[in-house]
């Protein structure tokens, strides 16, 4: 039996069809994307704009550090809360852990959480506790849960399930099968997602800015709005870049340590 013997459409499964649909829709949407139609000096505009970011203004370093510290504190607390909540919720949203009647309501809840924009979460938090760092934490936590729980549950559905199934067939409860069968396999991706969320929350400073909790987000907004502070803006970015890089590096190290342990590379 050769590949050519099969009808051409047999190569397309659900995935292929979705992909083609997506491609067709994107290409169909292209014509409606319009430029300004004016004759602009693209390169000149860009280089002028970018030039104003350099050199970074180190005079505000100390103040930036304070702002950043506050931001990191808020990010840490909200990420911790979000991770705990998401973990619980994602159990309810994973087909291979939760029964159907838990699954769909949980999924729908997550969809609703993700639909609500950050601004509205910020407002909601303000309505509940007023404009302060607690509101920032609440807003970021709720906002993060929508992402994180989705990622978690998708990870749980996509990793190697064989061991979980084996435990289920040994009559372990879904939770037990999850804990001792699936979790050991899903761990590296889950930790990646957690670190990413922490990073995201550090950068989500602007949401906290909305609710007036200060932090670096407010500085960023003020710098962006005043004409001549782009070099200050770039210093803040530089500091954030350091944090992002550290977290990226930590994620890499954790994944590597698990991989090494799995492969059992002798030292």
């Amino acid at each position: 039996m050769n590949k050519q013997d099969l009808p051409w459409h047999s190569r397309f499964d659900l995935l292929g069809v979705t992909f083609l649909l997506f491609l067709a829709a994107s290409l169909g949407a292209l014509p409606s994307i319009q430029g300004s139609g004016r004759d602009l000096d693209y390169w000149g505009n860009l280089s002028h704009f970018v030039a104003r970011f350099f050199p970074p203004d180190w005079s505000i370093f100390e103040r930036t550090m304070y702002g950043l510290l506050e931001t990191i504190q808020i990010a840490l607390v909200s990420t911790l809360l979000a991770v705990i909540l998401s973990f619980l919720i994602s159990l309810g949203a994973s087909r291979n852990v939760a029964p159907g009647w838990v699954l769909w309501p949980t999924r729908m809840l997550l969809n609703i959480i993700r639909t609500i924009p950050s601004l509205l979460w910020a407002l909601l938090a303000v309505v509940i506790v007023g404009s302060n760092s607690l509101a920032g934490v609440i807003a970021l936590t709720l906002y993060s849960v929508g992402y994180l729980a989705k990622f978690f549950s998708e990870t749980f559905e996509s990793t190697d399930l064989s061991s979980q199934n084996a435990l289920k067939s040994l009559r372990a409860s879904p939770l037990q099968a999850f804990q001792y069968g699936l979790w050991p396999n899903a761990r590296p991706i889950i930790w990646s997602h957690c670190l990413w969320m922490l990073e995201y929350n550090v950068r989500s400073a602007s949401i906290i800015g909305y609710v007036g909790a200060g932090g670096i987000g407010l500085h960023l907004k003020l710098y962006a709005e005043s004409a001549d502070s782009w070099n200050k803006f770039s210093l803040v970015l530089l500091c954030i870049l350091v944090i992002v890089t550290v977290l990226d590096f930590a994620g890499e190290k954790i994944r590597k340590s698990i991989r090494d342990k799995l492969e059992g590379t002798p030292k």
Partner: protein
Amino acid sequence: SNQQEEKAADPKVEKSSELSLQKVVIALKANKNPEKMLAEKEAIEQYLSAKLAREVEVLIPTDSSVVVESFRNGTLDLGYLSSTDAARNLDQETASILLIHLKNGLPSYQSIWLSLKNKKYQSIDELKDLPVAFASRSSTSGYLIPVWDLWKRGLVGPDTSLTDFFSLTIYGTGYVSAVEKVLSGEVEAAAVSDYVLTGDNKYLNDHQKSRLRIIQQQGPVPSHTICARTTLSQSDRAILQEALLAMNQENPKLRDQVFNGELIVVDQDKHLQVTREAIDLQKTLKP
């Protein structure tokens, strides 16, 4: 909110000469660079807490709906707001005007259309079918009043939208981004507040200013206001108003820095008349 009113009017605490609030929370507008903003924040906190013998906290929320909701739930006491934001709060009955500031002796300032110096437009009528920028959708002097002006001139209306008159209308993230679009040649003119060009170099540097000219002025734009939460008790309102008014004599420098001029008491409906008219008009325009 009724509860809070009762609490504020609790006879135990009500001694007309003393503030019933344990802590006063004030919101300022985020419109300056952080150095000045943070310095002002500290200065005003110190001044007022000495004056009121209460802890004072200054917030810098970046979204106007946060201010509305904070007034409503009672976590914000005073706010320095544009006339548009003030009108919004008044409509929602979350706050009312306590004081306004005078700019050059007037309770209003002007909105202007800016273009490059080498363009010879005499009035906004000449920009038909050309691209323009507004400061932002929520700006009073950079959107609301200029549109009101266009309507008065009969250029836009229920049948003619902004995009029918201009070839393109762009909204910036503030005065500066709108002006930058003029400087880069993307648009022909931008609507901003007059102090962007005539005031200090808070928004534009000298070089940028030297390339710009005013096409026309429109206004008046009612000046910014200090609003107080409606659920504050009458005596608290009076004490806060008094403390702020005292700045006129005791610390005019700080007053000018933070509130842009002399503080006075006005009739709030009269002050907001123009703004309200413009807001109402806004709803009748073709989108």
